[in-house]
């Protein structure tokens, strides 16, 4: 049932996979070694739950012997000597690493537009669903000039899964970086509880908020990957010690009458698009009509979370980036007049504006005279935000239901009209408080917008109740039956592979 192992793929699947591998560089940096070499080594024995399953990994995870850049000049050519724990776990289960995916530089951004390899294009830009809607509106003939962003910062991973180049991809989530692109690309984007999955080898943005994220086309796939990844890691002192029950099986909920869904009222903001709001309402109604209790809850400190996040994030960034000086690894400038001059030039050349801006902000907040007023204050506010969630869950709520993003994906040209910081502040609004509180959350694709683009909704669960959260999400996914992306080429080649247009995805389960 789980992890059907692809021993010797048939001709059709092989050529299909080969075509998918010719993905444009901005999405996927392909591993040179052919994944099919792996098959000959298999000798017919299943390696694990993910045996033979192609996966992609965001380029801020360390991969042994494979360049890891974080989409930054600072790490161009950097080849780590070790695998991140999550990467190792996937490989141990037999997964095939297809490539490292593009991102915003050092995972700072909400569009996947600010990396040195260029922006990531949302595969939905080329979908039949979107193109048909656009033909109805008289726009410019140049079809490619208004392609859409994927969201970020794990945009490359989202595009890779969305375009069928792999079954699952690892992202990272610090303020919504997995859930945001998942919503824009019509995918399941899962953020586990902080401490459930090891961060060893994940090049950090904010150590106290980062988690590895999982992007898949359906909830069951996400659960399988989580089962492979979850568990304590002696190399990461922030993972919790309790062993995880494996395998990570999701029951199929028969009914939701025992469930209590919470709707946080502060999340109804004026910037929320009417389409998303409408879907959010419909989702709440759906639960209610199926017997669940749906109540309004309050998370009173929501409005402070963006500012609080800004202080804590930039402070940790300033600290985490201090190691990039060109001395041990990575980019080093040509100046060798003095150590200080070398450091300064290396860091100026290696980091983009976004990274440098955050470092400067962070250093400001950490100055002795500012520390109490900014950093410590932000920590206190963080505690209040986390307590908001605790109170909501203590009032009997099992799961919170919120939007993931303010609207559907926007065109790149429109996105770049505002700077990175402004965009991040806007786009992280529903996702970022979850990272402050360390809770599990998942974005589920719900329906297409009037423009034919995906819209997702977010479920937030109690700490370490990831399984329960995914169970609810799975039930919801079954109800909404989100359509498969219709990529012209794909449909022509693979009608044989896809049994049914209405399938939510090409699932790992058979």
């Amino acid at each position: 049932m789980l992890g059907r192992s692809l021993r010797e793929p048939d001709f059709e699947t092989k050529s299909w996979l080969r075509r998918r591998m010719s993905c444009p560089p901005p999405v996927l940096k392909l591993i040179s070694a052919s994944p099919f070499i792996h098959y000959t080594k298999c000798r017919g024995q299943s390696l694990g739950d993910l045996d033979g399953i192609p996966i992609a990994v965001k380029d801020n995870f360390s991969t042994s012997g494979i360049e890891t850049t974080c989409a930054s000049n600072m790490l161009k050519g950097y080849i780590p000597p070790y695998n991140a724990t999550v990467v190792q776990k996937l490989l141990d289960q037999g997964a095939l690493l297809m490539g490292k995916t593009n991102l915003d530089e050092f995972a700072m951004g909400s569009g996947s537009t600010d990396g040195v390899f260029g922006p990531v294009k949302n595969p939905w830009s080329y979908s039949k669903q979107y193109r048909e809607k656009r033909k109805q509106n008289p726009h410019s003939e140049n079809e490619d000039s208004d392609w859409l962003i994927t969201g970020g910062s794990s945009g490359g991973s989202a595009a890779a899964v969305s375009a069928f180049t792999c079954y699952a991809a690892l992202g990272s989530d610090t303020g919504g970086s997995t859930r945001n692109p998942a919503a824009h690309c019509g995918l399941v984007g899962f953020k586990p509880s902080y401490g459930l999955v090891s961060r060893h080898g994940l090049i950090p943005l904010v150590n106290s908020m980062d988690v590895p994220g999982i992007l898949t086309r359906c909830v069951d796939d996400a659960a399988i990957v989580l089962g492979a990844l979850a568990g304590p890691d002696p190399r990461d002192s922030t993972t919790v010690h309790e062993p995880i029950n494996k395998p990570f099986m999701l029951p199929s909920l028969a009914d939701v009458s025992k469930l209590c869904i919470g709707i946080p009222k502060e999340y109804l903001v004026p910037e929320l698009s009417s389409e998303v709001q409408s879907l959010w309402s419909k989702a709440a109604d759906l639960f209610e009509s199926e017997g669940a209790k749906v109540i309004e809850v309050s998370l009173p400190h929501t409005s402070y979370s963006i500012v609080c996040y800004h202080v804590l994030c930039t402070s940790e960034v300033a600290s985490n980036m201090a190691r990039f000086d060109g001395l041990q690894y990575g980019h080093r400038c040509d100046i060798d007049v003095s150590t200080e001059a070398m450091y300064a030039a290396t860091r100026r050349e290696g980091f983009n504006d976004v990274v440098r801006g955050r470092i400067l902000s962070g250093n400001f907040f950490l100055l002795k005279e500012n520390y109490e007023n900014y950093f410590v204050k932000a920590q206190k506010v963080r505690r209040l935000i986390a307590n908001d969630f605790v109170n909501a869950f203590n009032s009997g709520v099992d799961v919170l239901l919120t939007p993931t993003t303010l609207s559907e994906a926007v065109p790149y040209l429109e996105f770049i009209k505002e700077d990175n910081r402004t965009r991040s502040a806007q786009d992280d609004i529903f996702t970022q408080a979850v990272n402050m509180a360390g809770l599990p959350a998942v974005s589920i694709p719900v329906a297409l917008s009037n423009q034919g683009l995906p819209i997702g909704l977010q479920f937030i669960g109690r700490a370490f109740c990831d399984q329960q959260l995914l169970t609810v999400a799975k039930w919801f996914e079954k109800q909404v039956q989100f359509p498969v992306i219709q990529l012209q080429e794909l449909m022509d080649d693979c009608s044989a592979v896809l049994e049914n247009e209405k399938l939510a995805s090409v699932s790992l389960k058979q």
Partner: protein
Amino acid sequence: MAAPMLRWGCRGRRWAFARVDGGSCHRRGAPTGSTSNQIRGESSVAQQPLHTAQKTRKGEHKWAAVVGLEIHAQISSNSKLFSGSQVRFSAPPNSLVSFFDASLPGTLPVLNRRCVEAAVMTGLALNCHINKKSLFDRKHYFYADLPAGYQITQQRLPIAVNGSLIYGVCAGKKQSQVIPKTVRIKQIQLEQDSGKSLHDNLRSQTLIDLNRAGVGLLEVVLEPDMSCGEEAATAVRELQLILQALGTSQANMAEGQLRVDANISVHHPGEPLGVRTEVKNLNSIRFLAKAIDYEIQRQINELENGGEILNETRSFHHKLGCTMSMRDKEGKQDYRFMPEPNLPPLVLYDATSLPAGADPQQVINIDQIRETLPELPSVTREKLVQQYGMLLEHSFTLLNEVGLLEFFQNVIKETRAEPKKVTSWVLNTFLGYLKQQNLAVSESPVTPSALAELLDLLDSRTISSSAAKQVMDVKNRNPRAINKLIGLVRKATQSRADPVMIKEILEKKLSL
């Protein structure tokens, strides 16, 4: 922006370049030399309390000096504080460096249990309160021997606080009285050591060796309760003995396992404390005392000449016998302390708070450690006094000299002479000779057995006291004594024997 400095308030003249012993040593600018830590800024020692140690000096006013110490002791452990790479002295450069030590992105710190135990043991031995919860912080500055751009330390809440160290200062006419003094221990914290940088001025390059980067350190902060070089040196010596007795650090200053920074200021008794300077990286007990006394005198001279003391860092140059300013830039460092997010709070337990069914590998029980503490030097000295009836100051000498206690105990084992006799011979004759010849106990030509035998002969009145001394002289290869023997043999052979041959035979017989 920086914290306001205590100024002495002298108007008028600025730097008066006063002549001091050993030539004029006041010089600004970057020092030459190879030690690291050159651009480290202010320390994190708290403000000094009002203290009025008396120190009478010649001159119109009395001056009081106030000395505090920050001592870094390398923890004796197999691996480093946060990573599994080995701890070894004098290994080939960059051969003991893990991914974490090299600050490879994505690596995380994992706390070493042995280092925590060492900290608890040391804290208990120094009468500290052990904090059941302590925290780790990042201290940021850029330097080539600090790969991550920050050091992991314990600034907010260290592992042990509020202890005391009792040390004995020799005083009295013949330095034969031991006066016990106490210095308060402000705190003990765990932190990482940095790598080593070697400046190659010839080729205009700096070579970095990260073998030491990440090695566990215990920083022991001594409050400014000391008043001169001798007190500081004695306190450090006692701390060394304690650490060695515990096994938590080998505390060998020459090998860099124990490094001391001194904070020194002077003031008139009854008046507020003066501006302090920090003298860094003193790597022998002798230089420590010298440097502190020099600095005290320098400050006094400076102030008596109407100058002012700058709150700065200075290094001691032992060849010149003076301290020199290390500052090469204005302003103080802001270390931008931040909690270390990758390490949860360190929680320790005692017998009452230990959770039931806890994995012993994962918890540390303070009470258990207290019960298994090795014998401390103060107890050893007490026992010596009780057991052998020696004076307290004798016991101090026995412990202060490396290897002497073991020597003494071995002699006691093998001889039937009275302990008091043994004490006298070991401390006076034996030690006296070693000092004269500038030898360590381990280099002594006289073995414990030999001395034991000699004392037995003395005890049975087979030989006289003066004869015994002569034998010692011979055994210690005192040329005059040997020549005397040769002379005696020649006499006995009526000047017929060849002196060279006599010497050879004698040396063989005496197994010299």
